[in-house]
């Protein structure tokens, strides 16, 4: 299980639309909404498929593999109760579909080790009643 240095984390308000994404990690799965008619992955979750306008949508587990598309090393302490240690915020590409991405943190490696193109794998961090999907280097 990931041990994050501890940036400010505010848990999401769970809804019928987002519950699968935020709680899939409790079962060890990264779950992304998918159109059951045309197959398009939809993230963030939406009530309709933006390609075929189908309302027949359901979350499915993805591989949990990803590639760092962009990142920043955060230095600023946004909250008086959060750590002042640096941490990495990143946008990662999921291999399941072009331009299917998510914002996350890269953990379990020195911040200097992160680079664009880095292969990463999902890990989950418990937060209140959800599991936050974070990513760590695939080759650890």
């Amino acid at each position: 299980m990931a041990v994050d240095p501890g940036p400010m984390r505010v848990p999401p308000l769970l809804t019928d639309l987002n519950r699968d994404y935020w709680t899939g990690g409790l079962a060890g799965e990264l779950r992304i909404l998918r159109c059951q008619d045309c197959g398009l992955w939809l993230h963030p979750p939406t009530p309709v498929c933006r390609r075929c306008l189908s309302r027949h949508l359901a979350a499915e587990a993805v591989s949990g593999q990803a590639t760092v598309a962009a990142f920043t090393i955060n230095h600023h302490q946004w909250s008086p109760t959060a750590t002042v240690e640096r941490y990495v915020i990143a946008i990662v590409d999921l291999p399941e579909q072009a331009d299917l991405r998510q914002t996350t943190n890269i953990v379990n490696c020195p911040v200097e080790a992160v680079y664009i193109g880095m292969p990463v794998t999902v890990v989950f961090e418990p937060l209140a009643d959800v599991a936050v999907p974070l990513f760590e280097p695939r080759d650890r």
Partner: protein
Amino acid sequence: MNFDVCITGIGSSAIGRVLHREPVDLAIEGCMAAMADAGLTRDDIDGITAFHIEGSASVIQVIDAMGLKVNWFADVGYGPSQVTALFDGIMAVQTGRARHVLAFHSSCEGTVRQALGRGGTIPGAATAIPERVSGPQEWWLPFGAPSAGNHIAMYAQRHFHEFGTTREQMAQIALVERANAGRNPEAIYRDPLTMDDYLSARMISEPFCLFDCDIPIDFCTAVVVSRADSTSGLRKPPISIEAMSTACHSRLSWDQFDDLSTMVLRDVGADLWRHTDLRPSDVDLAQVYDGFSFIAMAWLEALGFCGRGEIGPFIEGGTRISLDGELPVNTNGGQLSAGRKHGWGYLPEACIQLWGEGQARQVPNDPEVAVVGTGGGTFAGALLLGRS
């Protein structure tokens, strides 16, 4: 010109980090100043609109406070940038809803943020951090990424990665704007800034340091938008609106956007030139959104002043974008040095320069055409202005 609409006056309230005044009080001050600048009285104003968010005055407060009798009014939130109310005001005049529209935005973000303290607000907004997060921040706050700066920093990093852009190049936005602010008595930060200062400043979110980020303030900016056939006898030569774009052909998402080295302003920058015979080479100065330095770079690139990916070399050394350069940028100090006016500072500064009222910061090239780009991230809108 494809608009029968022009800008006839601008106004500002007092501006400061923390003024301890009410948003509506600042709004009245700004609106009165804009009316006086245009040479209009209260009875001439028959339309009014405002950018109304947390910590700002509503148009209804101002209508009532000033006893206005209007034929058109609208409180406006976000749309194609924070100045959507201004775009709507232009369209209201163009469609005959009103002859003279006041468009304003006031904010006490500086006061609110000081009162709530660090960690007490969502960065960039006068909004308290919630216990549970929903809406767009749902995808930021669980990851310790509360600021638009974190996300713009990732775009900057991606631009650096793809095109070899450097922090020394990006520094020129902050350095040139600070030099301009030194000539603007209303700017917040006016002391000279050197490359050494910039490179040794504390980092916020790489590649951004402290000087790449703007600062919350208290202020009101107001603009008078008038019908072109209603400007005789006014104080100022009207500023014509040569073109306007609010195009959006992409996903309005911070992380699902198709090209992470730019933003939706790319669509606006390309679309603006479809509405005019003017070209980027006709533009004498640019006032472009700089909530974070990289956004200004992305705007200049999107508007076609240089090729894709070439903004680093374009601004290197700072000469080209300085007051006496070929394309002066953010001549009042921008939001980095003159304060976070939520996008409402750019059009007034363009007008000041076109009217030749810049005093110590007046550009020397007798400008006739100015471009204004507002917004960053998931919204953007642009105007091309001309001296009639």
